[in-house]
């Protein structure tokens, strides 16, 4: 009798526990870096978009999980014959989180603000081709300077989200958008909490609450995952721990692709790196497979140019920079540097840079190139390398989607100045025919590879760890985002 009572009690307890679990509607997501602010239209940090993109803020268009451009606040659009005028029909019944209504004036305000002379937008080039933005009877009409096949893509970026003039002052600390989640609070150095937007115009989300927790130390990230403090870590920072997490039945490890071309960025404006022979020598001195294995424990796809391998226009050019130390030495000799030379190698904090840097330094030493390694924090890296251009070599992952256009900017930090390439990119931007665009993109990839502008290492893998019951997280990273709109708990 007693045993039946006991087992009944246990059964009941299990039932309660089971139903409690089924009803779970909150999620805690781990991130390595904390955003410096929460205004995606005023900051370059990827961490901003990783919190607010698609969750708090929306643009006219948006990226889907596969990188395709989908309608968001714009319901439909029409493109004029000459490709110069885009007319966007907006979603009805949309309101900002502060209850102010969303209309075409907010769109014109947001885009004009981003385009403005004094705009602090980190990706101003996205808007450079826009002539004017107008509100015509509730629809948004965008006029372009030249025909541009990129507009819908450009408007999907986190930097192009729509903000309201009423809340613009406090955007950085208390973002107000139109998305399915409302910003709740931010405990600096610890976490950001979002809550469900009950009045959301679109499909309702399954989650009631989402917490982003910031854990910079890989060791602490591992401990937090194991302790169950986190439900998911979409960009897990320590690939060496993944086999252990995978072996744990509580977690699933999802491998996907990112837009992160990890490159040995080379200062094309200083001696002797301005010599293409020297850059070619560096390219042949690098053993990509050793770097991917040693720095990323095998997670990563080798690339031979600045382009994502999963993109349809990708050309595999890794053959042009095969690992061949003898050839590298011969090229150095040809460049008049038979005894090698010394340059700097400045490394930002991520493991791909720090570990990859040590391996590359050893590989370069084999062919006679000595590197002085200095490990920098992100702020120092941005100051010295990205802004100050005071570097010889550096390793960094360019995580923006489709960013081969940076090679057309001679004042960009690696200072590649090739008029042919710049002309090519101009004709690409003006081209609207898909087949021709692909062809131009492939030409562009070939030019930068033949010029050995940078050392092309690998495409950063997205190594996501999540509870096995948590579904709907993005497998790949077509843009920097943790889109929670489709996330739910499986019973």
């Amino acid at each position, binding site marked *: 009798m007693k045993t039946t009572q006991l087992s009944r009690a246990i059964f009941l307890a299990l039932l309660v526990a089971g139903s409690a679990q089924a009803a779970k509607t909150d999620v805690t997501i781990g991130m390595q870096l904390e955003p410096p602010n929460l205004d995606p239209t005023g900051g370059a940090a990827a961490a901003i978009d990783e919190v607010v993109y698609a969750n708090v803020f929306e643009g006219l268009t948006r990226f889907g999980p596969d990188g395709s451009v989908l309608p968001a606040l714009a319901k439909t659009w029409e493109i004029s014959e000459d490709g110069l005028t885009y007319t966007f029909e907006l979603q009805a019944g949309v309101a900002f989180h502060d209850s102010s209504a969303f209309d075409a004036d907010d769109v014109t305000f947001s885009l004009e603000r981003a385009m403005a002379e004094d705009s602090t937008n980190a990706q101003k080039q996205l808007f450079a081709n826009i002539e004017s933005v107008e509100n015509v009877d509730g629809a948004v009409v965008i006029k372009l300077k030249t025909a541009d096949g990129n507009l819908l893509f450009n408007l999907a970026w986190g930097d192009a989200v729509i903000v309201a003039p009423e809340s613009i002052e406090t955007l950085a600390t208390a973002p107000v958008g139109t998305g399915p989640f409302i910003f709740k609070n931010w405990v600096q150095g610890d976490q950001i909490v979002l809550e469900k937007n009950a009045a959301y115009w679109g499909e309702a989300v399954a989650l009631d609450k989402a917490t982003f927790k910031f854990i910079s130390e890989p*060791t602490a990230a*591992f401990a937090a995952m194991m302790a169950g403090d986190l439900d998911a870590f979409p960009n897990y920072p320590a690939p*060496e*721990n993944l086999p252990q997490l995978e072996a744990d039945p509580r977690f699933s490890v999802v491998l996907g692709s990112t837009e992160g071309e990890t490159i040995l960025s080379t200062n094309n404006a200083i001696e002797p790196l301005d010599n293409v022979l020297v850059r070619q020598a560096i390219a042949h001195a690098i053993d990509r497979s*050793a770097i991917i294995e*040693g720095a990323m424990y095998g997670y990563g796809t080798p690339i031979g140019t600045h382009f994502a391998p999963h993109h349809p226009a990708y050309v595999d050019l890794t053959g042009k920079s095969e690992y061949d130390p003898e050839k590298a030495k011969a090229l150095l000799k040809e460049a008049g540097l038979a005894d090698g030379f010394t340059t700097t190698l400045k490394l930002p904090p991520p493991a791909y840079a720090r570990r990859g840097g*040590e391996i590359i330094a050893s*590989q370069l030493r084999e062919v006679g190139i000595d590197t002085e390694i*200095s*490990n920098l924090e992100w702020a120092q890296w941005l100051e010295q390398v990205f802004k100050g251009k005071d570097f010889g070599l550096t390793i960094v992952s360019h995580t923006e989607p489709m960013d081969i256009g940076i090679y057309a900017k001679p004042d960009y930090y690696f200072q590649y100045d090739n008029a042919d390439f710049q002309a090519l990119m101009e004709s690409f931007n003006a081209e609207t025919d898909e087949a021709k665009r692909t062809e131009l993109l492939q030409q562009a990839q070939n030019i930068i590879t033949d010029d050995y502008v940078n050392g092309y290492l690998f495409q950063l893998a997205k190594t996501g760890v999540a509870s096995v019951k948590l579904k709907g997280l993005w497998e790949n990273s077509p843009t920097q985002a943790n889109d929670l709109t489709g996330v739910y708990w499986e019973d």
Partner: protein
Amino acid sequence: MRLRSFILGALLVLIFFSAALISYVWTPFDITQIDIKLRFKSPDFTYWLGTDHYGRDMLSMLMIGARTSIAVAIVAVGIGMLFGVPLGLAAAAYRGRFLDEAIMRGNDLVFAFPALLIAIMITAVYGPGALNAIIAIGIFNIPVFARLSRGAALSLWKRDFILAARAAGKGVTRISFEHILPNIANLLIVQGTIQFSLGILAEAGLSFVGLGTQPPIPSWGRMLADSQTLIYTEPQLALFPGLAILLTVLGLNLLGDGLRDWLDPRLRHER
């Protein structure tokens, strides 16, 4: 018992000093070459302590790491003695006067900052690197030696043989260096070994947080930091540099204690 721990300490210190010295002419393997295929080898007859996450020989890494630690600590203690001892002697010689006050209050100021904080401050301003770590640890050592020499010298200044030297017409500087310094030398040596072990710990700590020795030069602290995420799968990578730090510091402390007992006449009589 005392003697035994002294011998143990001396032995440990000897092992690490010889490992560091030998590394200048020979290491089992070349650690500048990274071969990923050889990584995470368990200790065997080829790789006595196994290989690290880049396929480098751990024993060779530890030997060169010992060199780094010892070099940083020696120079740092050297800086501390070079500046600290004369300052302390001067303060004692002019006790109670302005110079004494100025020196000792300056010391208090440096002392008020924790050592590691000074080091982080210096490396933050002048950039990370072994040289700045040496300077940082050295600066922290100055007040230690200044205080010690002043205290010891003060009691000596009251002694008769100093009075005799003064009567013989010797100046303050000569007395300080010819009579005071030799008599406090044993104290300085003992303190030196203690500071030496603290210097090794400080270097390891700074390198652990990335402000000390920069790659590719091996450092015990950085080896520990690198093995952090691997501690569950490859615990030996953390174990060996950890043991190296522990045993060296232990050895230096035992040696310091033993030296103090041996050099201090009062303690010697008691034995």
